[in-house]
Protein backbone atom coordinates (compact mmCIF):
# COMPACT_ATOMS: atom_id res chain seq x y z
CA UNK A 1 0.00 0.00 0.00
CA UNK A 2 1.34 3.43 -0.84
CA UNK A 3 0.99 4.67 2.70
CA UNK A 4 4.24 6.58 2.74
CA UNK A 5 3.76 10.34 3.14
CA UNK A 6 5.40 11.13 -0.15
CA UNK A 7 3.77 14.48 -0.81
CA UNK A 8 3.10 17.51 1.34
CA UNK A 9 -0.46 18.20 2.38
CA UNK A 10 -2.22 20.96 0.49
CA UNK A 11 -5.60 21.29 2.11
CA UNK A 12 -8.52 21.08 -0.30
CA UNK A 13 -10.61 24.28 -0.36
CA UNK A 14 -13.54 24.11 2.06
CA UNK A 15 -15.99 24.89 -0.76
CA UNK A 16 -14.77 21.87 -2.71
CA UNK A 17 -15.30 19.57 0.27
CA UNK A 18 -18.77 20.98 0.89
CA UNK A 19 -19.75 20.62 -2.77
CA UNK A 20 -18.43 17.05 -2.86
CA UNK A 21 -20.48 16.18 0.21
CA UNK A 22 -23.53 18.03 -1.15
CA UNK A 23 -23.33 16.01 -4.37
CA UNK A 24 -22.99 12.80 -2.36
CA UNK A 25 -26.01 13.72 -0.20
CA UNK A 26 -28.12 14.81 -3.18
CA UNK A 27 -27.46 11.57 -5.07
CA UNK A 28 -28.35 9.67 -1.90
CA UNK A 29 -31.66 11.53 -1.63
CA UNK A 30 -32.49 10.92 -5.29
CA UNK A 31 -31.72 7.19 -5.01
CA UNK A 32 -33.76 6.73 -1.86
CA UNK A 33 -37.03 5.04 -2.82
CA UNK A 34 -39.08 5.90 0.28
CA UNK A 35 -37.84 9.46 0.15
CA UNK A 36 -38.90 9.82 -3.49
CA UNK A 37 -42.32 8.40 -2.65
CA UNK A 38 -42.95 11.12 -0.06
CA UNK A 39 -41.29 13.98 -1.88
CA UNK A 40 -42.29 13.35 -5.50
CA UNK A 41 -44.88 10.61 -5.96
CA UNK A 42 -47.32 11.74 -3.25
CA UNK A 43 -47.22 15.43 -4.29
CA UNK A 44 -47.78 14.47 -7.95
CA UNK A 45 -50.66 12.18 -6.94
CA UNK A 46 -52.15 15.03 -4.90
CA UNK A 47 -51.76 17.35 -7.89
CA UNK A 48 -53.39 14.99 -10.36
CA UNK A 49 -56.06 13.78 -7.93
CA UNK A 50 -57.17 17.19 -6.69
CA UNK A 51 -57.14 18.62 -10.21
CA UNK A 52 -59.68 15.99 -11.29
CA UNK A 53 -62.25 16.70 -8.58
CA UNK A 54 -64.09 19.88 -7.56
CA UNK A 55 -63.90 19.33 -3.79
CA UNK A 56 -62.62 20.87 -1.57
CA UNK A 57 -62.95 24.45 -2.77
CA UNK A 58 -59.48 25.95 -3.18
CA UNK A 59 -60.13 29.25 -4.93
CA UNK A 60 -61.15 31.14 -1.81
CA UNK A 61 -60.46 34.61 -0.45
CA UNK A 62 -58.22 36.72 -2.65
CA UNK A 63 -57.75 33.79 -5.03
CA UNK A 64 -61.48 33.33 -5.71
CA UNK A 65 -62.25 33.28 -9.40
CA UNK A 66 -58.87 31.76 -10.27
CA UNK A 67 -58.70 28.40 -12.05
CA UNK A 68 -58.53 25.45 -9.64
CA UNK A 69 -55.22 24.18 -11.05
CA UNK A 70 -53.69 27.66 -10.62
CA UNK A 71 -54.48 27.67 -6.88
CA UNK A 72 -53.74 23.97 -6.42
CA UNK A 73 -50.26 23.91 -7.96
CA UNK A 74 -48.59 26.37 -5.54
CA UNK A 75 -49.99 24.30 -2.67
CA UNK A 76 -48.49 21.14 -4.14
CA UNK A 77 -45.15 22.93 -4.56
CA UNK A 78 -45.32 23.86 -0.87
CA UNK A 79 -46.11 20.23 -0.04
CA UNK A 80 -43.01 19.15 -1.97
CA UNK A 81 -40.87 21.56 0.07
CA UNK A 82 -42.42 20.23 3.29
CA UNK A 83 -41.73 16.63 2.26
CA UNK A 84 -38.10 17.11 1.31
CA UNK A 85 -36.94 19.83 3.68
CA UNK A 86 -38.78 18.68 6.80
CA UNK A 87 -39.97 15.06 6.71
CA UNK A 88 -37.12 13.61 4.66
CA UNK A 89 -34.37 15.53 6.46
CA UNK A 90 -35.74 14.88 9.96
CA UNK A 91 -35.90 11.12 9.35
CA UNK A 92 -32.49 11.03 7.66
CA UNK A 93 -30.93 13.02 10.49
CA UNK A 94 -32.48 10.77 13.13
CA UNK A 95 -31.07 7.63 11.55
CA UNK A 96 -27.69 9.15 10.69
CA UNK A 97 -27.32 10.01 14.37
CA UNK A 98 -28.25 6.43 15.25
CA UNK A 99 -25.67 5.02 12.82
CA UNK A 100 -22.94 7.44 13.96
CA UNK A 101 -22.62 8.98 10.48
CA UNK A 102 -22.70 12.54 11.78
CA UNK A 103 -19.99 11.84 14.35
CA UNK A 104 -17.72 10.16 11.82
CA UNK A 105 -18.09 12.90 9.21
CA UNK A 106 -17.49 15.45 11.97
CA UNK A 107 -14.00 13.99 12.41
CA UNK A 108 -13.12 14.37 8.71
CA UNK A 109 -11.84 17.64 7.20
CA UNK A 110 -15.45 18.37 6.25
CA UNK A 111 -16.34 18.98 9.91
CA UNK A 112 -19.75 19.60 11.42
CA UNK A 113 -20.26 23.04 9.93
CA UNK A 114 -19.34 21.80 6.48
CA UNK A 115 -21.69 18.86 6.85
CA UNK A 116 -24.66 21.08 7.73
CA UNK A 117 -23.85 23.40 4.82
CA UNK A 118 -23.59 20.42 2.46
CA UNK A 119 -26.91 19.02 3.63
CA UNK A 120 -28.64 22.36 3.08
CA UNK A 121 -27.10 22.69 -0.39
CA UNK A 122 -28.19 19.15 -1.26
CA UNK A 123 -31.77 19.85 -0.13
CA UNK A 124 -31.93 23.01 -2.24
CA UNK A 125 -30.53 21.19 -5.28
CA UNK A 126 -32.93 18.26 -4.95
CA UNK A 127 -35.83 20.63 -4.31
CA UNK A 128 -35.06 22.49 -7.52
CA UNK A 129 -35.34 19.28 -9.52
CA UNK A 130 -38.52 18.21 -7.71
CA UNK A 131 -40.20 21.58 -8.15
CA UNK A 132 -39.34 21.61 -11.85
CA UNK A 133 -40.85 18.12 -12.20
CA UNK A 134 -44.04 18.98 -10.29
CA UNK A 135 -44.28 22.26 -12.22
CA UNK A 136 -43.95 20.41 -15.52
CA UNK A 137 -46.77 18.02 -14.60
CA UNK A 138 -48.90 21.00 -13.56
CA UNK A 139 -48.23 22.76 -16.88
CA UNK A 140 -49.46 19.65 -18.68
CA UNK A 141 -52.59 19.78 -16.52
CA UNK A 142 -53.22 23.37 -17.57
CA UNK A 143 -51.41 25.45 -14.93
CA UNK A 144 -50.77 29.02 -16.10
CA UNK A 145 -48.52 30.73 -13.53
CA UNK A 146 -48.02 34.50 -13.37
CA UNK A 147 -44.48 35.00 -14.62
CA UNK A 148 -44.11 38.04 -12.35
CA UNK A 149 -44.38 35.60 -9.46
CA UNK A 150 -41.23 33.63 -10.23
CA UNK A 151 -38.92 35.82 -8.13
CA UNK A 152 -41.17 35.97 -5.05
CA UNK A 153 -41.73 32.23 -5.38
CA UNK A 154 -38.00 31.53 -5.45
CA UNK A 155 -37.54 33.63 -2.30
CA UNK A 156 -40.49 31.91 -0.60
CA UNK A 157 -39.13 28.44 -1.43
CA UNK A 158 -35.67 29.41 -0.18
CA UNK A 159 -36.95 30.84 3.11
CA UNK A 160 -39.45 28.01 3.52
CA UNK A 161 -36.84 25.34 2.90
CA UNK A 162 -34.44 26.89 5.42
CA UNK A 163 -37.18 27.18 8.06
CA UNK A 164 -38.32 23.60 7.51
CA UNK A 165 -34.77 22.21 7.48
CA UNK A 166 -34.13 23.99 10.78
CA UNK A 167 -37.32 22.46 12.20
CA UNK A 168 -36.17 19.07 10.90
CA UNK A 169 -32.90 19.56 12.79
CA UNK A 170 -34.88 20.28 15.98
CA UNK A 171 -36.82 17.02 15.62
CA UNK A 172 -34.29 14.74 13.94
CA UNK A 173 -31.40 16.08 16.00
CA UNK A 174 -33.01 15.57 19.38
CA UNK A 175 -35.29 12.51 19.39
CA UNK A 176 -34.64 8.80 18.97
CA UNK A 177 -34.74 7.62 15.36
CA UNK A 178 -37.99 5.66 15.76
CA UNK A 179 -39.68 8.61 17.42
CA UNK A 180 -38.48 10.89 14.61
CA UNK A 181 -39.91 8.50 12.02
CA UNK A 182 -43.32 8.48 13.67
CA UNK A 183 -43.45 12.19 14.48
CA UNK A 184 -42.15 13.43 11.13
CA UNK A 185 -44.73 11.39 9.21
CA UNK A 186 -47.54 12.48 11.53
CA UNK A 187 -46.54 16.12 11.15
CA UNK A 188 -46.44 15.67 7.36
CA UNK A 189 -50.00 14.33 7.30
CA UNK A 190 -51.30 17.07 9.62
CA UNK A 191 -49.55 19.94 7.87
CA UNK A 192 -50.41 18.62 4.40
CA UNK A 193 -54.09 18.37 5.29
CA UNK A 194 -54.66 21.09 7.83
CA UNK A 195 -51.54 23.25 7.82
CA UNK A 196 -52.47 25.61 5.01
CA UNK A 197 -50.33 23.71 2.54
CA UNK A 198 -52.67 22.18 -0.05
CA UNK A 199 -55.78 23.92 1.24
CA UNK A 200 -55.30 27.64 1.85
CA UNK A 201 -55.52 28.55 5.54
CA UNK A 202 -58.39 30.88 4.58
CA UNK A 203 -60.43 27.82 3.60
CA UNK A 204 -59.96 26.22 7.03
CA UNK A 205 -61.41 26.98 10.46
CA UNK A 206 -59.04 29.17 12.54
CA UNK A 207 -57.53 30.37 9.29
CA UNK A 208 -55.78 33.50 10.66
CA UNK A 209 -54.07 31.42 13.33
CA UNK A 210 -53.11 28.68 10.88
CA UNK A 211 -51.59 31.24 8.54
CA UNK A 212 -48.80 31.66 11.09
CA UNK A 213 -47.64 28.10 10.42
CA UNK A 214 -44.57 27.87 8.15
CA UNK A 215 -46.43 25.63 5.71
CA UNK A 216 -49.37 28.04 5.48
CA UNK A 217 -47.02 30.99 5.04
CA UNK A 218 -45.17 29.12 2.30
CA UNK A 219 -48.39 28.05 0.60
CA UNK A 220 -49.87 31.55 0.75
CA UNK A 221 -46.66 33.18 -0.50
CA UNK A 222 -46.55 30.77 -3.46
CA UNK A 223 -50.28 31.22 -4.23
CA UNK A 224 -49.90 35.01 -4.18
CA UNK A 225 -46.79 34.74 -6.34
CA UNK A 226 -48.15 32.41 -9.01
CA UNK A 227 -51.86 33.38 -8.99
CA UNK A 228 -51.58 37.14 -8.46
CA UNK A 229 -47.96 37.76 -9.41
CA UNK A 230 -47.47 39.60 -6.11
CA UNK A 231 -45.16 39.54 -3.07
CA UNK A 232 -46.75 38.39 0.20
CA UNK A 233 -44.42 40.20 2.61
CA UNK A 234 -46.19 39.13 5.82
CA UNK A 235 -45.92 35.45 4.79
CA UNK A 236 -42.25 35.89 3.87
CA UNK A 237 -41.73 37.54 7.27
CA UNK A 238 -43.38 34.57 9.00
CA UNK A 239 -41.04 32.19 7.16
CA UNK A 240 -38.00 34.28 8.10
CA UNK A 241 -39.08 34.32 11.74
CA UNK A 242 -39.63 30.55 11.79
CA UNK A 243 -36.21 30.07 10.22
CA UNK A 244 -34.49 32.23 12.84
CA UNK A 245 -36.33 30.75 15.81
CA UNK A 246 -35.98 27.15 14.64
CA UNK A 247 -32.32 27.74 13.78
CA UNK A 248 -31.62 29.04 17.29
CA UNK A 249 -33.55 26.15 18.81
CA UNK A 250 -31.71 23.63 16.63
CA UNK A 251 -28.37 24.97 17.91
CA UNK A 252 -29.50 24.08 21.42
CA UNK A 253 -31.22 20.78 20.63
CA UNK A 254 -29.09 19.19 17.92
CA UNK A 255 -27.10 16.26 19.30
CA UNK A 256 -24.60 14.48 17.11
CA UNK A 257 -25.26 11.00 18.43
CA UNK A 258 -28.37 9.04 19.39
Amino acid at each position, binding site marked *: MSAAPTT*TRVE*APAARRVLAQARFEALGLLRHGEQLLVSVVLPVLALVGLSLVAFPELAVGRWSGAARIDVLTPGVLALTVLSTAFTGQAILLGFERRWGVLRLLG*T*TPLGRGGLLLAKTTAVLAVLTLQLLLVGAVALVLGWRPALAGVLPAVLAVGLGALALVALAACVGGALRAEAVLALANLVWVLLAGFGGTLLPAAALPAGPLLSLLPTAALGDALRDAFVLGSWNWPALGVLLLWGLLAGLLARRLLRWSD
Partner: protein
Amino acid sequence: MSQGASRPCAVELHDLTRSFGGTTALRGLTLDARGGEVTCVLGPNGAGKTTAVEIAVGLQRPDGGQARVLGRDPWGAGAAHRDRVGVMLQDGGLPQAVTPQALLPHLARLYSRPLDVPELAGRLGIPAFGRTPVRRLSGGQRQRVALAAALVGDPDVAFLDEPTAGLDPHARREVHTLLREVAGHGTATVVTTHSFEEAQRLADRVAVVVDGRVAALGSVEDVCLGAGATGLEEAYFALTDGAAR
Protein backbone atom coordinates in the same frame (compact mmCIF):
# COMPACT_ATOMS: atom_id res chain seq x y z
CA MET B 1 12.10 1.45 24.01
CA SER B 2 15.03 3.78 23.67
CA GLN B 3 14.27 4.23 19.97
CA GLY B 4 10.56 4.82 20.72
CA ALA B 5 11.31 7.31 23.47
CA SER B 6 13.17 9.50 20.96
CA ARG B 7 10.14 9.72 18.68
CA PRO B 8 7.90 12.77 19.03
CA CYS B 9 4.65 12.39 20.94
CA ALA B 10 1.76 12.70 18.51
CA VAL B 11 -0.89 12.13 21.16
CA GLU B 12 -0.70 13.51 24.69
CA LEU B 13 -3.62 12.98 27.02
CA HIS B 14 -2.89 14.39 30.45
CA ASP B 15 -4.96 13.89 33.60
CA LEU B 16 -8.26 13.67 31.70
CA THR B 17 -11.48 13.58 33.67
CA ARG B 18 -14.95 13.08 32.23
CA SER B 19 -18.32 12.34 33.82
CA PHE B 20 -21.75 11.64 32.37
CA GLY B 21 -24.41 12.48 34.93
CA GLY B 22 -23.55 10.34 37.93
CA THR B 23 -21.15 8.09 36.02
CA THR B 24 -17.45 8.88 36.00
CA ALA B 25 -15.79 7.62 32.82
CA LEU B 26 -12.30 9.08 33.25
CA ARG B 27 -10.52 9.77 36.54
CA GLY B 28 -7.23 11.38 35.55
CA LEU B 29 -6.27 9.34 32.50
CA THR B 30 -2.78 10.07 31.21
CA LEU B 31 -1.55 8.49 28.00
CA ASP B 32 0.74 9.29 25.12
CA ALA B 33 1.35 7.78 21.71
CA ARG B 34 4.25 8.32 19.35
CA GLY B 35 4.60 8.56 15.62
CA GLY B 36 5.66 5.30 14.00
CA GLU B 37 4.33 3.18 16.86
CA VAL B 38 1.22 1.12 17.49
CA THR B 39 -0.17 1.79 20.94
CA CYS B 40 -2.75 -0.79 22.01
CA VAL B 41 -5.20 0.25 24.70
CA LEU B 42 -6.62 -2.65 26.70
CA GLY B 43 -9.22 -2.53 29.44
CA PRO B 44 -12.52 -3.95 30.63
CA ASN B 45 -15.82 -2.73 29.19
CA GLY B 46 -16.63 0.68 30.62
CA ALA B 47 -13.02 1.36 31.63
CA GLY B 48 -12.97 4.61 29.64
CA LYS B 49 -11.14 3.59 26.45
CA THR B 50 -13.78 4.86 24.04
CA THR B 51 -14.28 8.09 26.00
CA ALA B 52 -10.55 8.76 25.86
CA VAL B 53 -10.52 8.13 22.09
CA GLU B 54 -13.53 10.38 21.55
CA ILE B 55 -11.81 13.19 23.46
CA ALA B 56 -8.67 12.68 21.39
CA VAL B 57 -10.59 13.00 18.12
CA GLY B 58 -12.54 16.06 19.26
CA LEU B 59 -15.95 14.44 19.67
CA GLN B 60 -16.04 15.08 23.40
CA ARG B 61 -14.61 17.78 25.59
CA PRO B 62 -12.93 16.66 28.82
CA ASP B 63 -14.22 18.04 32.13
CA GLY B 64 -10.62 18.41 33.23
CA GLY B 65 -7.09 17.76 32.07
CA GLN B 66 -5.57 18.42 28.69
CA ALA B 67 -5.62 16.67 25.32
CA ARG B 68 -3.06 17.47 22.62
CA VAL B 69 -2.99 15.69 19.28
CA LEU B 70 -0.30 16.73 16.81
CA GLY B 71 0.33 19.68 19.11
CA ARG B 72 -3.25 20.95 19.07
CA ASP B 73 -6.29 20.74 21.30
CA PRO B 74 -8.56 18.44 19.25
CA TRP B 75 -11.73 20.12 20.55
CA GLY B 76 -12.62 22.69 17.91
CA ALA B 77 -9.47 22.05 15.86
CA GLY B 78 -9.87 23.03 12.22
CA ALA B 79 -10.00 21.17 8.93
CA ALA B 80 -6.21 21.18 8.53
CA HIS B 81 -5.91 19.25 11.79
CA ARG B 82 -8.68 16.79 10.91
CA ASP B 83 -6.98 16.25 7.56
CA ARG B 84 -4.14 14.54 9.47
CA VAL B 85 -6.25 12.38 11.80
CA GLY B 86 -7.98 9.12 10.88
CA VAL B 87 -10.82 7.82 13.02
CA MET B 88 -12.58 4.49 13.28
CA LEU B 89 -15.45 4.70 15.73
CA GLN B 90 -16.83 1.75 17.63
CA ASP B 91 -20.25 2.15 16.01
CA GLY B 92 -18.73 2.41 12.53
CA GLY B 93 -20.45 5.62 11.50
CA LEU B 94 -21.05 4.42 7.96
CA PRO B 95 -24.06 5.60 5.94
CA GLN B 96 -26.22 2.52 5.48
CA ALA B 97 -27.68 3.06 2.02
CA VAL B 98 -24.44 3.52 0.08
CA THR B 99 -22.01 0.94 -1.21
CA PRO B 100 -18.35 0.79 -0.15
CA GLN B 101 -17.50 1.32 -3.82
CA ALA B 102 -19.22 4.73 -3.71
CA LEU B 103 -18.38 5.70 -0.14
CA LEU B 104 -14.60 5.27 -0.05
CA PRO B 105 -13.76 7.38 -3.13
CA HIS B 106 -16.10 10.05 -1.77
CA LEU B 107 -14.36 10.10 1.61
CA ALA B 108 -10.98 10.22 -0.16
CA ARG B 109 -12.08 13.45 -1.86
CA LEU B 110 -12.42 15.14 1.53
CA TYR B 111 -8.68 14.74 2.25
CA SER B 112 -5.73 16.58 0.81
CA ARG B 113 -3.47 13.54 0.41
CA PRO B 114 -5.61 10.44 0.09
CA LEU B 115 -4.30 6.96 -0.38
CA ASP B 116 -4.98 4.99 -3.52
CA VAL B 117 -8.53 3.79 -2.85
CA PRO B 118 -8.58 0.64 -5.03
CA GLU B 119 -5.28 -0.47 -3.51
CA LEU B 120 -6.43 0.14 0.06
CA ALA B 121 -9.80 -1.52 -0.59
CA GLY B 122 -8.04 -4.46 -2.23
CA ARG B 123 -5.80 -4.98 0.81
CA LEU B 124 -8.90 -5.26 2.98
CA GLY B 125 -10.81 -7.54 0.60
CA ILE B 126 -13.51 -4.93 0.06
CA PRO B 127 -13.99 -5.39 -3.73
CA ALA B 128 -15.69 -8.75 -3.04
CA PHE B 129 -18.61 -6.86 -1.48
CA GLY B 130 -17.97 -3.38 -2.86
CA ARG B 131 -21.33 -3.13 -4.64
CA THR B 132 -23.41 -4.20 -1.65
CA PRO B 133 -25.06 -1.45 0.43
CA VAL B 134 -23.51 -1.10 3.86
CA ARG B 135 -26.75 -2.12 5.59
CA ARG B 136 -26.53 -5.59 3.98
CA LEU B 137 -22.90 -6.23 4.95
CA SER B 138 -21.87 -8.56 7.75
CA GLY B 139 -20.29 -7.11 10.89
CA GLY B 140 -16.81 -8.07 9.75
CA GLN B 141 -17.29 -6.55 6.30
CA ARG B 142 -18.46 -3.29 7.86
CA GLN B 143 -15.40 -3.29 10.10
CA ARG B 144 -13.17 -3.49 7.04
CA VAL B 145 -14.98 -0.60 5.35
CA ALA B 146 -14.80 1.49 8.52
CA LEU B 147 -11.07 0.78 8.80
CA ALA B 148 -10.54 1.79 5.18
CA ALA B 149 -12.50 5.00 5.87
CA ALA B 150 -10.17 5.74 8.79
CA LEU B 151 -7.01 5.19 6.76
CA VAL B 152 -8.04 6.63 3.39
CA GLY B 153 -6.76 10.13 4.27
CA ASP B 154 -3.24 8.80 4.94
CA PRO B 155 -3.36 10.03 8.54
CA ASP B 156 -0.43 11.09 10.71
CA VAL B 157 -2.44 9.81 13.69
CA ALA B 158 -5.02 7.01 13.52
CA PHE B 159 -7.46 6.23 16.33
CA LEU B 160 -9.00 2.82 15.76
CA ASP B 161 -11.64 1.65 18.21
CA GLU B 162 -11.64 -2.17 18.14
CA PRO B 163 -10.73 -2.46 14.43
CA THR B 164 -10.62 -6.25 14.36
CA ALA B 165 -13.82 -6.97 16.32
CA GLY B 166 -15.85 -9.52 14.35
CA LEU B 167 -13.12 -10.26 11.79
CA ASP B 168 -12.21 -13.81 10.81
CA PRO B 169 -8.61 -14.90 11.46
CA HIS B 170 -7.44 -14.27 7.87
CA ALA B 171 -8.89 -10.77 7.78
CA ARG B 172 -7.45 -10.06 11.23
CA ARG B 173 -4.02 -11.12 10.10
CA GLU B 174 -4.24 -8.88 7.05
CA VAL B 175 -5.38 -5.94 9.20
CA HIS B 176 -2.45 -6.49 11.56
CA THR B 177 -0.02 -6.47 8.64
CA LEU B 178 -1.64 -3.33 7.26
CA LEU B 179 -1.50 -1.52 10.60
CA ARG B 180 2.16 -2.41 11.05
CA GLU B 181 2.83 -0.94 7.61
CA VAL B 182 0.88 2.20 8.42
CA ALA B 183 2.85 2.67 11.63
CA GLY B 184 6.03 1.86 9.74
CA HIS B 185 5.40 4.89 7.57
CA GLY B 186 5.33 7.12 10.65
CA THR B 187 1.68 7.14 11.67
CA ALA B 188 0.95 7.14 15.39
CA THR B 189 -1.60 4.32 15.59
CA VAL B 190 -3.80 3.99 18.66
CA VAL B 191 -5.82 0.78 18.76
CA THR B 192 -8.32 -0.18 21.44
CA THR B 193 -8.79 -3.91 21.77
CA HIS B 194 -9.90 -6.72 24.05
CA SER B 195 -7.52 -9.20 22.46
CA PHE B 196 -4.27 -10.03 24.24
CA GLU B 197 -3.08 -11.85 21.16
CA GLU B 198 -3.65 -8.73 19.10
CA ALA B 199 -1.85 -6.49 21.54
CA GLN B 200 1.02 -8.96 21.79
CA ARG B 201 1.36 -9.18 18.03
CA LEU B 202 0.73 -5.55 17.12
CA ALA B 203 1.77 -3.24 19.92
CA ASP B 204 4.99 -1.33 20.37
CA ARG B 205 3.42 -0.13 23.60
CA VAL B 206 0.43 -1.23 25.62
CA ALA B 207 -1.75 0.83 27.92
CA VAL B 208 -4.03 -0.94 30.37
CA VAL B 209 -6.96 1.28 31.32
CA VAL B 210 -8.76 0.46 34.55
CA ASP B 211 -11.61 2.46 36.01
CA GLY B 212 -10.84 5.64 34.06
CA ARG B 213 -7.09 5.63 34.64
CA VAL B 214 -4.06 4.12 32.93
CA ALA B 215 -2.85 1.39 35.27
CA ALA B 216 0.17 0.46 33.15
CA LEU B 217 1.85 1.86 30.06
CA GLY B 218 4.90 0.56 28.25
CA SER B 219 6.13 -2.26 26.08
CA VAL B 220 4.49 -5.65 26.59
CA GLU B 221 7.60 -6.74 28.50
CA ASP B 222 7.53 -3.64 30.71
CA VAL B 223 3.84 -4.09 31.53
CA CYS B 224 4.36 -7.76 32.36
CA LEU B 225 7.39 -6.97 34.48
CA GLY B 226 5.57 -4.18 36.34
CA ALA B 227 2.67 -6.50 37.13
CA GLY B 228 4.94 -9.34 38.17
CA ALA B 229 3.45 -11.50 35.43
CA THR B 230 4.89 -13.88 32.89
CA GLY B 231 2.51 -12.91 30.07
CA LEU B 232 0.21 -10.09 28.99
CA GLU B 233 -2.96 -11.98 29.87
CA GLU B 234 -1.72 -12.62 33.39
CA ALA B 235 -0.62 -9.00 33.72
CA TYR B 236 -3.99 -7.78 32.49
CA PHE B 237 -5.92 -9.78 35.05
CA ALA B 238 -3.53 -8.79 37.80
CA LEU B 239 -4.13 -5.13 36.93
CA THR B 240 -7.87 -5.31 36.32
CA ASP B 241 -9.24 -7.95 38.69
CA GLY B 242 -11.76 -6.33 40.96
CA ALA B 243 -12.20 -3.32 38.67
CA ALA B 244 -14.11 -4.98 35.82
CA ARG B 245 -17.69 -3.74 35.81
